[in-house]
Structures are given as structure tokens and as C-alpha cells.
């Protein structure tokens, strides 16, 4: 395999809900695989559970993707979300990152997120009711998957309902890998920054109960811990990290559970399976997106091989989540799988800050769908679902459903 030179990455799989055939082959034969990215740069792809876990947990694998010899992830100059993130505290390492994380993290504690759950359920219920009113069949991605997480983030940031659509567009554009040009990305970032600065000013003058007002209060306490630029970066980070990922996952979750309708029926019969089922669809996701890149500032061992400093590695959490060495019958979906230490949210000190919120959104959506639309089914054969291409986060363009 390695003699045939680096493979083009991301991979494309044949069937929309099946993993690319490379995952299993690379896990077996070439766990540290040379790949060529959309930028033309080369990197090393990790596909085994243990290796991915090790790299994401070890701070010596840095997020310094702005290093001169780091592989550029995207075809455009800014590097999309990784380019943005690597400049801020969120992307850095060590104590500064931990401090930032703990400031923002208090908005995402399990208790706070659980307290948001009734509101999330109400939003999901309203979106489902609107979908039902427009009639069967419908696209679950446009009707439910995409709006819900933006509504939730806007709620978190105190953004008025009327501006939700603009937020959705900015998020989509800032996450672009190849779909939008650099000009569009720059314009979206500028518009977002302009809107958000004004929003920060408005919130400073008239604080609300939202996370943003709380962050501003911390800045204004002038204890030097958090600058205004960081507030802006945090808002942008929450939007791009919290929107597209969850939005796509809602569509993929529905598609996976409906593609084999016995799964859906089992959940209807036993809603206590919702929690483990959400974990299992996160693990089972065959379209998780790009993966997590890391840059090596020193020589390091992975999977029995020494990787030289200056290497960029890409961790495929999706491939790792199908590793038979870590999960029994990894290629079978087991809605009751426990424990399920999947890597969908990453792992280690940079693992997803919003994972409790994401889990809550997914559980709430699934419960609302099972309750309000138990007769839900895919309106097309699973093989006819089309993937969204050219974005860092994987998803399905549409999930046509009927009831």
C-alpha cells in the first residue's frame, strides 16, 4: 500500500451509510498511512483505536497547525476552522488552554445542560410540528437537523431568533474545506465578527442570562484572564463547533436508525434505549468528517513506529470507532452497547467542550421523534442518500422521510 504512494484524503465510500473500505484495510495493514490532503500537502493517517487515543491524549502532539512545515488541511489559505482555532486560546495548549476551557466549561456542565433540556425539547417539538404541518414527505435535515442546533446556540449566546438564519450561513461558510472560496470565507468571517462585536456591545449595555453576558462580565472584571478578542473567538468557536457537527449528526442518526427499521421499532418499544442508542450512532457514524489533525514538534512513537518531528498526523476517530480491537462486533450496531468509549467527541484535554450539550440535543431530538412520529420511515432507499461533500464535518445532504 505504501509503495503506491499517499492516498487522496478524505476517502470516499461507495454506499452513503457504509465506512470507506480503506478504514479496515489501513487498520489491518497500514495503521500509520501516508495521505495527501485537499491542499496537496502530505500527512499521516491513524486508524487504530489505541493509536488515536494515545495521540489525542498526549499534549506533545500539538494543535500548532500554523507551523511553517505543518500540512495545510484545506485548499484555501485560512485553513477554515483549524486555521481559526489554532490562533486562539482554544487551540493552544497547556495552562492557557485549561484556564479558558474552565471559564467556558462552566456553561456546559452536565447540570446546566440538563437544565436546558426542557427548552431543547420544546424547540425540537416545535420544529417537528412545523414539519408535520407542511406535510409528508419532508427533509429531516432542513426541517429539524440544521435549525435546532443554531436555535440552541443562539439561545446560549442570547442572539435574537430573527438572526438565526444568518448565523447558520456564517457557520456553514467558516467550516468550509473546499466548497466556498477564500473570498466568501473571509467575507463570512468579517460579517460574523462585525455582527458579534455589536452583539457584545449590546449585551454589555444590557446583560441577559446568557453565556455571552457572563463572559463579558468576566472580561469587564478586568482580571486579565479573558480578552475581548477571546470572547469573539469563543463565540465563533461555539458556533462552528456546535452547529454543523450536531446538525449533521441529527440527520445521520435518523438515517442510521431508519435504514434498518427494526432499530427504530426497538427504540419505540423501549425508549430507555435512547441514551445508549445515541452513543452507538455516534460510534457507528460512517461519515464523521475529516478527523483531528495534530502537529509534532519532536520525534514520537506511535503504533511501534517513530514519527519524525514536523509530521502532521490526522486521527480518524471514525475508523478508530470501528476497530475490532476496541469494540466487540464493531461493525454491528448494538443500540444497548455499554460501556461505549467511542471517540466521536475526541479524547483527552481537547475533547469536545460541548459534548454534554450535543448528547442532550441528540437525545431530546430522538425522544421527540419517537414520541411524535413513531411511524417515521425513510422515503428513499438508504443507498440513495447523498453525502455533503467539501466540508470538514461529514453529513447527508438530505434525509427524506415520511410518516
Amino acid at each position: 500500500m505504501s509503495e503506491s504512494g499517499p492516498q487522496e484524503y478524505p476517502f470516499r465510500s461507495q454506499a452513503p451509510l457504509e465506512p470507506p473500505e480503506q478504514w479496515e484495510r489501513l487498520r489491518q495493514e497500514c495503521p500509520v498511512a501516508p495521505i495527501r490532503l485537499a491542499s496537496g500537502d502530505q500527512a499521516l493517517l491513524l486508524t487504530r483505536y489505541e493509536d488515536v487515543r494515545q495521540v489525542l491524549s498526549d499534549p506533545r502532539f500539538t494543535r500548532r497547525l500554523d507551523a511553517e512545515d505543518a500540512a495545510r488541511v484545506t485548499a484555501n489559505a485560512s485553513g477554515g476552522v483549524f486555521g481559526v482555532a489554532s490562533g486562539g486560546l482554544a487551540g493552544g495548549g497547556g495552562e492557557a488552554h485549561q484556564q479558558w476551557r474552565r471559564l467556558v466549561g462552566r456553561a456546559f456542565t452536565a447540570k446546566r445542560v440538563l437544565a436546558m433540556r426542557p427548552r431543547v425539547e420544546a424547540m425540537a417539538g416545535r420544529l417537528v410540528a412545523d414539519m408535520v404541518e407542511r406535510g409528508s414527505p419532508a427533509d429531516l435535515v432542513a426541517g429539524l437537523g440544521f435549525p435546532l442546533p443554531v436555535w440552541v446556540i443562539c439561545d446560549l449566546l442570547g442572539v435574537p431568533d430573527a438572526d438565526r438564519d444568518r448565523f447558520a450561513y456564517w457557520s456553514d461558510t467558516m467550516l468550509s474545506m473546499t466548497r466556498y472560496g477564500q473570498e466568501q470565507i473571509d467575507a463570512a468571517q468579517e460579517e460574523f465578527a462585525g455582527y458579534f462585536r455589536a452583539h457584545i456591545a449590546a449585551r454589555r449595555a444590557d446583560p441577559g442570562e446568557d453565556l455571552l453576558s457572563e463572559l463579558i462580565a468576566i472580561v469587564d472584571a478586568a482580571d486579565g484572564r479573558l480578552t475581548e478578542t477571546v470572547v469573539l473567538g469563543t463565540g465563533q468557536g461555539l458556533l462552528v463547533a456546535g452547529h454543523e457537527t450536531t446538525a449533521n449528526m441529527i440527520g445521520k442518526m435518523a438515517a442510521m436508525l431508519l435504514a434498518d427499521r427494526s432499530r427504530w421499532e426497538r427504540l419505540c418499544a423501549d425508549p430507555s434505549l435512547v441514551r445508549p442508542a445515541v452513543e452507538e450512532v455516534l460510534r457507528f457514524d460512517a461519515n464523521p468528517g475529516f478527523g483531528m489533525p495534530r502537529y509534532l514538534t519532536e520525534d514520537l512513537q506511535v503504533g511501534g513506529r517513530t514519527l519524525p518531528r514536523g509530521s502532521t498526523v490526522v486521527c480518524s476517530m471514525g475508523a478508530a470507532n470501528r476497530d475490532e480491537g476496541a469494540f466487540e462486533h464493531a461493525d454491528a450496531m448494538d443500540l444497548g452497547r455499554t460501556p461505549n468509549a467511542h471517540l466521536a467527541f475526541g479524547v483527552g484535554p481537547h475533547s469536545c467542550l460541548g459534548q454534554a450539550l450535543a448528547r442532550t440535543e441528540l437525545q431530546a431530538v430522538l425522544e421527540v421523534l419517537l414520541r411524535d412520529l413513531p411511524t417515521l420511515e425513510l422515503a428513499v432507499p438508504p443507498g440513495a442518500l447523498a453525502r455533503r461533500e467539501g466540508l470538514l464535518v461529514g453529513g447527508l445532504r438530505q434525509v427524506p422521510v415520511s410518516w
Partner: protein
Amino acid sequence: MDRAPTARKEETIMKVAVDRDRCCGAGQCVLLVPQVFDQGEDDGVVVLLDPSPGGALHAAVAEAASVCPTAAIHLDPHG
């Protein structure tokens, strides 16, 4: 089974410890076993409520430890 009778099931002890420096505040443990884990209000870092939970909670605590993203929960099943 072939263990000494001292390890009778109802006497099984589990000692739990948390590493607050490692914790990233993901909150999985709190969602799984709120009787044993909480998070600090001002930083989201794990707070251990019960270092020796009863047998009925052992499976859930073990699950929390295994899914913790930073491996910040340590278990000593023999106390």
C-alpha cells in the same frame, strides 16, 4: 467461584478517586452517576461526592471511568 470466601459479593468495596488536574469537564460522569460525581459551579471540574459508593452503583461508576475522555477517574475495586 474458586476465590476465598472473603470476597463475598455483598461485601465488595469500590474506592473511587478523581484527578481534578486532568479533568476536562465533559460531564459524562455526572450524567451517568449523579450520586457519585458532580462538577464545580465555577469551573466545571469534577467533584467527588462519594469515594466509596454502594454495590448498586458499581457498574455505572465503572462505565463512567471507562468513558471519561481524560481518564481522570481511578477505581480500586478492592478498596
